[in-house]
Each structure stands twice: as C-alpha cells, then as structure tokens.
C-alpha cells in the first residue's frame, strides 16, 4: 500500500525505478491497479506496456487485469473506455486450420508469412491463384482502429472472439496495439531488437513500461544480442546463398524490373527501400543506429549479385576461421581487421548486411524463409560485429569440452553488456519500472543496465502470521559443516549430512517438497552417492522421488506425477536444479511445496569462457567486481528458488538454505526473506533445524481465519485512512528531527552496507564448479 506514493513519483517525475516486492502477494495486481488509476485519472491516458516472461504469466496478468477492471466498474458505476490486450507468438494464437498444427514456432511464423505477405496479396489481386489465410484477410474488411470491441481480452478470450468472427487473433492484437490502453506481452517484444523494431516501434514516448519478474533481465538482454555460429549453420548459409544466386538469375530472365526497382531504391537509402517495413517483414534485423538507415547502401553491395557474392565470401571466411583448433577470443575490431586483410570486406558494407538481405529476400518474393534462416543469422552477426566495437566478444571454441577429441567448433558472438539491448527502451520511454519478487541487491541492476533510478525500493512483507520459515543450516547433526564448495562437495561426510537433512525433512514435511541443487552434474553425482548410502531408500518410505532432467518432456512428466502424488497424500520430493526450468517458471503453491531445500550455493560454472569474458567486462566497464557479481548471481537464483513455495498470503512453507556459505551471504537475500530470518535460526545443525521446522508446522496447523489477516496484511478502507494519518504525522516528526540533528544522521551512514564485502574474497576460494 505504501508503495503507491513512491510509484506515483516515478510516473509524475518521469524516471525509472526498481522495485522489489514479495512474490505471491498480489504484486501484479497492486501495480496494475495503481497504474490504471493513474492512467485513467489524467487526461492523456498514458499507455501501459506490461512485460512478463512466460506465456502463463502473461495469461495470469491478463486475468488479473480483467478482474481489476470489473472491480473498477462496480465501484465507479460506469464502464470506462478501456481496452487491454495480450500478445504472444503466432504459434499460440494461430487459428489457421493447418498452420496451427505445426509444432515449431519458427515454422508457424514462416508459414503464416508466406500466406500473409504483401506480395501474396498483390498476386491475388492480379487474379493469380495463391494460398492465403482467410483469417488475416478478413481483418482488412474491418475498420483498422476498431478490430475488436473495448474491454480486457485474455488470450483465450481473443482466440474465441477470433474464431467467432473469423479474424486472426495475432494480427488483431498487433494492429490494435496503438489503440489500446494496456498491452501485456513478453519481454522479447521490447528487448530483442530483432523483434522490437517491428512490433514496438509505434508505441509513443510517454508509455509506462513495466518489466515484471525482471530478476533475470540482464541475461535476457544479453541473449537477445548474442549468436552462436556452427559449421552446420555455415553450410546451410552457403546453400542459402547459392539458392539466392539461382533465384536472382531466374528473376533476371523473367522479372528484371523488380530487381531494377530495388536497385533504384537502394541508391536512395534503406529507409526509402523500406516503406513496407511492417508486419509482413520477412526477417528481422538487429538494432541499427538511425543514421545508418537513412544512409544509402554502399555501392559495392547495391546490386543483388554483388551482394550475394559478398555474402558468400564472408561465409567462406568464417568457415576458414572455424578450422582453427585452438580457442580464440578476440574483439570486433581485431576480427574486422583480420577479415579485411583476407577478404577485402570493409566494415561499412558489413554493417548493412542484415538490412540488405531483408530487402533482397523481399524483392525476390521468397516464401520458404526457413531455408534462409542460417544465412540471416550470419548476416545479423555481420551487422552486429561491424556496428559495436565495445561490449561484444568473439570466442571460438573448437571443442565442446576440454576432453573432447572430435572437433565441433562453435563461434560464439557474445554480448557482454546488458545495457546495449535495453538502452533504447530507457531512452525511448520516460517511465520504466523494473520489478520482481527477488531483485536484490537493487543497486546492482541500475549499474549493470546503465540507467539511473528515481526510486529504488525493496518492500517487506506484512503477514498476519509468520507464514514462512527461512532457516540456514550450516552443519549436520554431527557438527561437520556442509557446503557445496568445490573441495568438500564430494566428501562422504558432507554428502551423508545432506542426505540426512533430506531424509529428516521428507519425514516431517506434509505433501510436497522441492530440493534444488547447484547443477545437473552435482545432482547426478550426489544422487548416485545417496543411492549407495541407502539414503534414497529411506526417503522412499515417506515420499515419491522425482528428478528434473534437461529434457523438457521428461521434466513435465515428472512434474505431473509430482502434482498427483502431492494431491493424493502420498507426498513427493522433486529434485531439481537451481538454474533449470523448474526454478524459474513453476510455482509450488500450497500442498505442492511445503518445504524448499536449497543444497549448496548455486554459483555459475565459472570455467565458462563466456562468463569469464563477461566478468572481465563488468569489472572494466561498470566496476563490478567478479566476486560481487558471482555472489549476487548465485543469491538471486537461490532467492528465486526459495520464492517458489510461497505464492500467496494464505500459503505457508519452510525455506532451508543448506550451506555454511549462506551465513555470510544472508544480506544479499531479498529484504522480505532476510527480515524473516530470526537470529537464532541462522546457524543451525540438522537436528536443530528439524526442531524449529516441527514447531513451525505445528503453528501452521492452527486454524487461520480470514479475519485474522484484517488490519495486518489486508486492509479495509478505514485501516488505510488511519495509516495515512499516522504516516503523515510520522513524516512531519521525522522532518523536524532531521533538521535538528542533520549532522549526526550523516555520520551514521558510512558504516552501513559493507558487511559482505570483507568476506567476498574469502568466499571465492571455495567457489563451485
């Protein structure tokens, strides 16, 4: 409740903010209601762009928005002019009877494009017989700004509406984006420059942008600009270039005018050639500086055949580079210098590569775009490598692992700077709100993403009772410290202590229990050791044991079984990985998760060259020390895992952090978790932990009525007014005091917040692998 003041500040002042709010406590709805109220109160009705991560989160947010609007309607007694839409990929929204049956998203996209592209329509108008999508063409018969009535449309809802009126839900959403008040879609539509350019460019500057579940936003940014090139993709790219060449010579014979037209436009500049840069654009392009788009295409790739030869040369060059049998990491400038020396390819035409290819593909009216995907990737890579001197690195790894004999070279073009992808968003929109349940330490994000905040706030939780029990277990019952540190992780005593911990908690936990390991590798080794020690047999008596695997299908099967077992009383343990799928998107509310056990600190695999490069970059550019970053990253994943079990105010659960290193990292946990850890519960052995867990569960078993929460975690209007009064008084008093003892306050500040720095050094000695 009290956060509203801070946020309005953000909205009024026009600035960015980072908020941490406990998960599962109506974060989404409170944000939505606040912004909607703000939006409807002011006459300019600033648009809200709400970005979430997964499809299910988008669906959830839409449902909440719908409920919210119904509530507003009840309260206000009238319906507001309001339209809220969600957008996801074609694969989820397609209605075309045969296209929608395709399995892969890329194929759906490609097939849809071949049915809806601009030239298909032209052909049809000329009377040729070409396949089209009736759902798409029906849209053209409607008023362009009123494709769908007002209201909030969930994804399901819009699908149903589309089916009824025979109109494509995907394109309905996309075209209506500029005419609605709230858009809810995935991060990628804003962050991935390849998509953002097309989907989001029409959004006006005063939009309010919210990134929900944004604790991983830096990784999303980085992934959206990184590419991996393999020998196989290069082979395919060559084939694609060969096909292009054939098509060009074909077209020269049949339809030379088209090529000439394209040529004439390119002489003017890319933008000129691009009047049709709209939704049917075939391929996507990475972020280009605007001046580049206005500039004319360099003369040596203006003609189609020249350009194809150019591409071929570039691909051959990459092939040659891939033959090297040692690890190479180099910066874009040195790559470009080498490239120029051997192929006479200059930087400038390289920058235009992706745009030029798009234009060519459009001119050639190609429909089977999948074939050109690898070529497109190479072109994107070319453009990026020539555009950015800093913040990127090329790493060539000839072997998959150090032990591998057969070379399988991969050229990683990695983005090191998360700020590059997100910069356009911050530049363009005046208010950006980044929020998540676990986004500590807050100051790391502005640093990494390169922006300044007006508000940075971490909210603690107000609960009617102590509904979750976070404890840190540092040693087993035999007082041997437990840790997943590299030196000790495979010692039998440590493994056995972890095993005992698991057994004890599976005995006392009702229904479901989730266990997180730092990596698949460690999970496998520890499970096999437990098998030998007979620990799994013991656990089996109390719970079903299920394991997450890298395979999505298997994992979803395991999850399903897990849920059944939790519901029918058998109870189950799910063993999974802190960076896996389970830890990110899946909620274990109520009986699905009463205990979460985090075995070891989930550090990243530090031997990865890409990670090393990124660490170095962070140190050099943003002055973030390696240890700080690694520890921050590990803790945000740990917090993410812990947050899985508590998904609402009437939920309860135990959170066990089992590693002696957690003791010192406690401060890096989100405020709402850290505050709930009692000082007596930070350095427990297994038996003590069991004791306090049992006590906690006994408390939780007491009946808990809705009315108990009143006034503490849910407020009535009267409570709110009272709070406001007291808050005002408080403010006045605080101000007065501050004036009187201004100097003293200043002195006090220096000593805060450096508690964990001292230890960081020591900690890193025992890093995981």
């Amino acid at each position, binding site marked *: 409740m009290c956060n509203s003041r801070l946020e309005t500040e953000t909205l009024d002042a026009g600035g960015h903010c980072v908020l941490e709010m406990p998960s599962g406590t109506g974060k989404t709805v409170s944000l939505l209601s606040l912004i909607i109220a703000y939006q409807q109160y002011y006459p300019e009705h600033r648009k809200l762009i709400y970005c979430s991560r997964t499809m299910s989160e988008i669906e959830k947010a839409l449902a909440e928005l719908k409920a919210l609007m119904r509530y507003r309607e009840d309260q206000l007694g009238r319906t507001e002019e309001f339209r809220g839409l969600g957008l996801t990929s074609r694969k989820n929204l397609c209605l075309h009877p045969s296209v929608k049956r395709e399995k892969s998203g890329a194929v759906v996209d490609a097939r849809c494009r071949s049915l809806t592209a601009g030239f298909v329509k032209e052909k049809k108008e000329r009377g040729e017989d070409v396949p089209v999508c009736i759902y798409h063409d029906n849209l053209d018969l409607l008023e362009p700004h009123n494709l769908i009535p007002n209201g909030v449309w969930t994804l399901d809802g819009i699908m149903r509406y589309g089916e009824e009126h025979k109109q494509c839900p995907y394109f309905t959403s996309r075209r209506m984006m500029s005419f609605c008040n709230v858009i809810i879609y995935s991060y990628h539509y804003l962050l991935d420059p390849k998509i953002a350019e097309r989907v989001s460019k029409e959004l006006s500057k005063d939009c309010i942008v919210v990134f929900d579940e944004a604790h991983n936003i830096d990784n999303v940014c980085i992934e959206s600009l990184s590419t991996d090139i393999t020998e196989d993709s290069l082979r395919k790219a060559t084939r694609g270039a060969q096909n292009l060449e054939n098509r060009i010579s074909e077209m020269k014979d049949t339809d030379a005018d088209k090529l000439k037209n394209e040529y004439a436009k390119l002489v003017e500049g890319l933008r000129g050639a691009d009047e049709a840069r709209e939704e049917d654009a075939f391929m996507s392009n990475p972020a280009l500086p605007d001046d580049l788009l206005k500039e004319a*295409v360099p003369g040596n790739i203006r003609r189609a055949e020249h350009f194809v030869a150019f591409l071929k040369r570039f691909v051959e060059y990459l092939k040659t580079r891939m033959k090297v049998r040692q690890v190479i990491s180099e910066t874009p400038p040195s790559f470009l210098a080498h490239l120029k020396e051997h192929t006479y390819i200059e930087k400038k035409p390289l920058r235009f590569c992706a745009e030029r290819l798009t234009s060519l593909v459009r001119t050639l009216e190609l429909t089977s775009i999948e074939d050109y995907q690898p070529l497109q990737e190479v072109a994107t890579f070319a453009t990026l490598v020539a555009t950015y001197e800093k913040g990127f690195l090329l790493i060539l790894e000839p072997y998959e692992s150090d032990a591998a004999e057969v070379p399988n070279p991969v050229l990683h073009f990695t983005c090191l700077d998360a700020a590059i992808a997100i910069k356009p968003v911050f530049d363009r929109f005046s208010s950006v709100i980044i929020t998540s349940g676990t986004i500590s330490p807050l100051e790391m994000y502005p640093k990494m993403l390169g922006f300044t905040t007006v508000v940075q706030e971490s909210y603690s939780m107000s609960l009617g009772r102590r509904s979750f029990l976070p404890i840190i277990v540092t040693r087993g019952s035999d007082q041997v410290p437990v840790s997943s540190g590299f030196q000790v992780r495979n010692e039998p005593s440590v493994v056995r202590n972890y095993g005992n911990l698991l057994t004890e908690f599976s005995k006392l936990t009702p229904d479901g229990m989730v266990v997180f390991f730092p990596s698949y590798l460690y999970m496998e080794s520890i499970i096999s050791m437990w098998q030998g020690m007979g620990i799994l047999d013991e656990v089996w008596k109390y719970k079903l044991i299920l394991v997450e695997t890298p395979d999505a299908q298997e994992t979803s099967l395991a999850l399903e079984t897990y849920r059944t077992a939790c519901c029918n009383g058998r109870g189950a343990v799910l063993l999974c990985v802190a960076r896996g799928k389970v830890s990110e998107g899946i909620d274990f509310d109520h009986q699905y998760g009463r205990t979460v056990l985090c075995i070891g600190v989930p550090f990243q695999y530090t031997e990865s060259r890409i990670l090393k490069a990124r660490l170095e970059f962070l140190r050099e550019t943003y002055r973030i020390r390696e240890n700080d970053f690694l520890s921050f990253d590990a803790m945000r994943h740990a917090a993410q895992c812990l947050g899985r079990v508590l998904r609402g105010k009437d939920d309860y659960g135990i959170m066990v952090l089992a590693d002696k290193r957690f003791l010192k990292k406690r401060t890096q946990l989100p405020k709402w978790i850290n505050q709930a850890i009692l000082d007596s519960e930070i350095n427990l052995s297994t038996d003590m932990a069991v004791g306090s867990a049992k006590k906690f569960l006994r408390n939780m078993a007491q009946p808990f009525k809705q009315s108990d929460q009143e006034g503490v975690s849910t407020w009535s209007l009267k409570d709110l007014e009272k709070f406001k009064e007291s808050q005002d008084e408080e403010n006045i008093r605080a101000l007065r005091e501050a004036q009187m003892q201004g100097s003293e306050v200043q002195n006090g500040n220096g000593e805060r917040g450096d508690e964990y720095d001292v230890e960081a050094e020591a900690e890193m000695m025992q890093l995981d692998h």
Partner: protein
Amino acid sequence: MSPKSIALVDNPMDDMCPICKSTRYLNKGIKFLINPECYHRMCSTCVDRIFTAGPASCPVPLCGKTLRKRGFKPAFFADLGIEREVDIRKRVGQVFNRRQEEFETLLDYNDYLQDTEDLIFDLVNGMAKEKLQAEEKLKAYRAMNLQEIEDNKRAGLEEADYERRKETAEKEAARQRRLKLIREQEEGKMDVEKSRRDMLERLANTDEDPTAITRQAQKVILKKSSARRNLTDSSSDPNGGLPLDSSLSIRGLKKKVAPIAEEAYDPFGGINLTPTRYVLNDEYENEWLNGIKTDTRILAGGYSLPEYYARTMFEAFSGLGVFINDEVGPKAKPEVRIKKEVEIDDDVF
C-alpha cells in the same frame, strides 16, 4: 577452366591429392598447395616432385599451364573459387583504392564502389572478352593515377597501423588496471590479517574486556575495507573506464596536414628593427675617426666602427616621427570604459 566447376569443390572431406591419389588417411601430414596461375590443387609432395627441377606444365589434364614452384601457396579458403576471387580483389584493390574522403558526395563514392565491383566481377566471372577489357581498364587506370594510388596506399597502411596501436595500448591499459586491482586486494587482505593479529595480541596481553576489543577490532576492519572501497571507486574515472591514450585518437582528421616548420626564435616578437628614416652606410668620413681605423691597439680590443656608426645614427634619429598623442590616445579610452564597468557592477550589488 570455368570458375563454376571450382566452386563445387567444397567438400572438406575431400582429402585426396588429385595427382598422386594419396589421402590424409595414408599421410597424416599431407598439405595441399595451389598455384594462382590455375588454382589446381595438389599435395606438397607432388609439387616438390614435379616442379623442383624448374618450371613445368600443370599435371592436371587439359590444363597445361606452365607453373613455377615459387608460385605455390597454401589456400586460405576451402572454396578455391573464392580464393581466386580474393586474389583478384587484392590485385584490383591495390589500384582502385580511393577513399571516401576524396569524393564530393556519398553518391559519387557509392557509384565508384559499384564500378569497381563491376570490374572485379568481369575479371572473376566474365567471358574472355570482358576479362580482357577489364584488364585493359585496370592498366589504364593505374597508369593515369600513379601518384594518388601511392598516397592512398600509404594512408591505408597508416590507418591500419593506428588501429593496431590503439588496440595494443588498450590491452596494456586493461592489464595494468587488472594488476592494480589485484595489488589492492592483496593489500586489503594483508591489512585485515594484520588487524586480526593485533586484536589477538591485545586479547592475550592486556586484561581489558575481551568483547569490547573484538567489537572494536571488527569495526576497524570494516571501516578500513569501506574506506578502501571508496578509494578505488573514486580513482575510477567517471566515463566508465577505458581512457584512451589521447595522443593516439586522431580519428576525426580529414587530411593529414604536414606540421609547419618551426621558425627561429625571435626575441622582439616580429618587430622590424631595420631603420626606416635613414640609410646606414658602411663608411662615414670623419677626421677624428680616421686614426682609429688603422690603430691596432684599439681594434685588437674588439672595437668596431660599424657598430659605433649604427649606434650614433640610431640615437640621432630615435624619437623622430613618434607622436605621443597617437600612441596614448587609443589606450586611454579602454581604461575609462573598464572603470565604468566596474562602477556598473557595483551598482548591481
């Protein structure tokens, strides 16, 4: 030889020498060479065998070009068609090496680029006739623009050199920063260690309240570490690091202007001291000077008559033609104005 047929040789597993049929399987260290005359591939053993004795004709059937051993080199590209294209580009690039700065408009430059590309295409893919024409054109252009080609070549080399230097400088700077960081961390660790030791000693040797000592020591350590942290933070430059060696960044320069030769130092700052109102003669007829002219006793000491003439003449004429009012007038006025300004300023406050 048609370039198309070469382009199809794109099989990395094709590890067999077409001449002697030995493969990588039999000969692990097999190396393939090509000769830019005809781009036929053969193994290094074959090259040694056939061409060591002197120029011979290519052993590939229907080729028969005369090749020398000197001309053989390993191919950079797997696709020999590309290899050939790049060799041609290299040749053309040495001649057509104009830079964008030399053109009035971007459009001109782009047209130029396209023309060059067309020429290369003719050389690579053209029929015999087109090829010949292109060669002619190349030759003619070279003959016409000899000087400029040289200039641009030099400019290109300089640029590449500059880039290289810039990168090494950057790398070095990064290394230095890293070293410094490590040193600082080491120092910090030692500091903490030392404080700990001190504390232990005090605990052992004095009979103060032990908890007080520990708490105090903890505080000292924390303070030190945060102070150190602030120090490193403030020493970092605000623009996000990577300070470039400023002597290297001359990117914006359009045309290199040769530095103007430095002139000799002029103590009078350019005032012309040659007399304007009289002409200084070498000789003046004067009775009482005549003796001196020949008197070695005087001249031996360094007495110089011309100097005496110059001084006397200067003294006689100095001050003529100088009007004090003219000199003082313009100076006096600004003084007044300045004073006024001061007054105005006073008024404001």
